[in-house]
């Protein structure tokens, strides 16, 4: 039985098992125990990536319990709740989660969690830690929901800045964006970069923003227009179906414009949807997190540790990297809170205060994330932002650049 099949079955069983698990009391394993609520989607649109994401973050909590937690006399218990990636489901589950677990933090998955809990968490004084990049519309002060990565527009601006530097010359880089109005998040990704290009005409020449369906019929004409405009890069941070349609449109036109993807629609997912990574030779993925390439990096070594000693079976890919990075910055913040307040009497409010009190270093997150300095001004760090760039070379994902500085993107 392959990993995917095995985890597919586990995923199906997990949803049902959770209902049963809800009746089983959590087991205390050390002097002081705190609970984490993990929001998961084993039966909705992210069911295929959830087993890897869930097992990755769980492996990090197990690792922390066995190492730092043991020294501090603290155990983090965790429990997954099936949300089906549905805001209504999250909202209806939340009172039960709170009364059952009394969690000191929530480990979230995506937009529905944010939509359902953004008003509740400040009242309940429980912070939520996400894995994805942030959104412009959620860029508000005094947040209780946090992203370790800046907005998608920050990430694309960082990538384009790097690309322009690689190209050389003083001319602005000609860029096109392929987005969709199917989701506010997709529009948000385009709007932030559009504003940045408007304010920095010496750096970026935004030749066009194309809005299309989430499963486009044909993008040949649109890609011809982009090629005719002399675009040097195409930003697609929406989904893999649009990447595939764009690639086919570019191929039909004989155009070789590199595409930049994000983590959720990155090289492995889009390559798989295209029938092979070789189709994306010379294209890029860029995000503020470690690239899951074959190279022997600190992040890769930490993954190997989790796989060898903590039963992590998920393969080394961007989804696993997201789960691990989410788990690592969550336990780092909790560790800081314990250092400052002692092991006893930790609350969600104290955890949130610890997030602002000191930076989470790149060493603490094993190189998965850059040093993160959160402030009450935004739900993500505003300073020291960096992205990493991966590409496909000879049919393999390789790291093209690390620690690329992200320019200052204004709020939109």
């Amino acid at each position, binding site marked *: 039985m392959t990993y995917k099949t095995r985890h597919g079955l586990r995923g199906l069983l997990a949803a049902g098992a959770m209902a049963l698990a809800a009746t089983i009391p959590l087991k205390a394993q050390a002097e002081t125990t705190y609970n984490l609520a993990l929001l998961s989607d084993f039966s909705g649109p992210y069911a295929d990536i959830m087993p890897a994401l869930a097992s990755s973050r769980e492996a990090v909590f197990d690792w922390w319990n066995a190492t730092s937690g043991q020294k501090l006399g603290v155990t983090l218990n965790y429990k997954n709740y099936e949300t089906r990636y549905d805001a209504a489901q999250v909202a209806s589950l939340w009172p039960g989660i709170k009364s059952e677990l009394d969690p000191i933090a929530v480990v979230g998955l995506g937009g529905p969690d944010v939509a359902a809990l953004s008003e509740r968490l400040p009242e309940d004084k429980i912070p939520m830690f996400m894995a994805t990049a942030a959104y412009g519309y959620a860029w508000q002060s005094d947040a209780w929901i946090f992203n370790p990565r800046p907005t998608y527009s920050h990430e694309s601006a960082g990538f384009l800045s790097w690309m322009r530097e690689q190209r050389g010359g003083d001319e602005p880089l000609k860029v096109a964006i392929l987005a969709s*109005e199917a989701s506010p998040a997709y529009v948000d990704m385009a709007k932030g970069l559009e504003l940045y290009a408007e304010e920095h005409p010496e750096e970026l020449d935004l030749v066009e923003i194309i809005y299309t*369906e989430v499963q486009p019929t044909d993008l040949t004409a649109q890609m011809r227009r982009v090629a005719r405009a002399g675009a040097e890069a195409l930003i697609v941070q929406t989904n893999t*179906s649009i990447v595939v349609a764009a690639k086919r449109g570019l191929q039909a036109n004989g155009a070789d414009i590199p595409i930049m993807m994000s983590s959720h629609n990155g090289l492995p997912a889009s390559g798989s949807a295209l029938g092979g990574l070789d189709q994306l030779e010379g294209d890029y993925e860029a995000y503020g997190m470690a690239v899951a390439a074959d190279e022997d990096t600190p992040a890769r070594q930490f993954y190997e540790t989790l796989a060898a000693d903590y039963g992590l079976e998920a393969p080394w890919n961007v989804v696993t990297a997201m789960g691990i990075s989410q788990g690592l910055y969550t336990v780092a913040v909790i560790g800081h809170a314990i250092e400052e307040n002692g092991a006893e009497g930790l609350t969600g409010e104290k955890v949130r205060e610890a997030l602002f009190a000191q930076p989470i270093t790149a060493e603490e997150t094993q190189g998965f994330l850059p040093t993160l300095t959160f402030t009450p001004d935004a739900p993500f760090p505003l300073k020291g932002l960096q992205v990493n760039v991966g590409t496909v070379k000879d049919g393999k994902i390789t790291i093209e650049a690390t620690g690329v500085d992200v320019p200052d993107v204004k709020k939109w």
Partner: protein
Amino acid sequence: MVYFINDIITGALIGLLYALVAMGFVVIYRASKVFNFAQGELVIIGGFIVWFTTMQVGLSLWLSIPLSLVLAGLVGYAIERIFLTKLIGESVFSMVMVTVGLLILLRGLVLLLFGPAVRPFPIIFPLKPLFLGDMLIPMNLLIGGIITVVAAVGLSWFFNRTRSGLRMTAVAEDHVVASSMGISVKGSIAFAWILGSILSTIGAMIFLSGKSLTFLASDIGFAALPVALFAGLESIGGLILAGVIIGVAQSLTTNYLDPMIGGSLGSVVPYIIMLAILLVRPTGLFGWRTIERV
């Protein structure tokens, strides 16, 4: 100017693809007076059948395409037998509500059986476009356009010139009356669902050739909806004209207006045209005007 003409041609071909999917709506409607809200889901079921026989079983396209069409026909037949046959003689509203339930059920089944992963769809039509001077025409859309026109001509002839087709029309008029006249209502509706599923599978092949397959592909059902309503739900031949008008309008809006306004007016234009025509002609361009005498 060349590019403008090219955009018109590409738009017309995309419109013909919408017309092919809309043909599924019309065929089922003409035989049962049921508006099938699950038409987009039939497209993805067809798509997954093609993907399964080609990419999973490993059959060559020459084998997998006819096999997929047969399997799609069986799916259509099964849907009719399981969900609709017992509703014959009941109100049309009940049958329409069943198709709404079917929409949810089929989506769930696809997720359960195949998962939400994005999969590569086989390359059925050549990826290399046809070059006519400076003009570029995607091969899948070109071949799809020809198939749509042939299917429309064939089905128009079938429904208007053959006894079987006329029987199906009689069934749509009134199940009880048709049955009392010795027409097999069950057989007619089952045949319409088989045909609707096969047309949807052909639509899936044209739409997805060389691209990717997820349950999101069912959205093409919504793109085809304005074409079906614009043409009139009884008119198969009218779909061609409606498809071309909507496709060209959408293409010109997407290529010339959207870049100016920085928005996605192209995805709304088909609905604006549809609403405009329905205000003037509630039965659509070529829909039948019925006179009810009380």
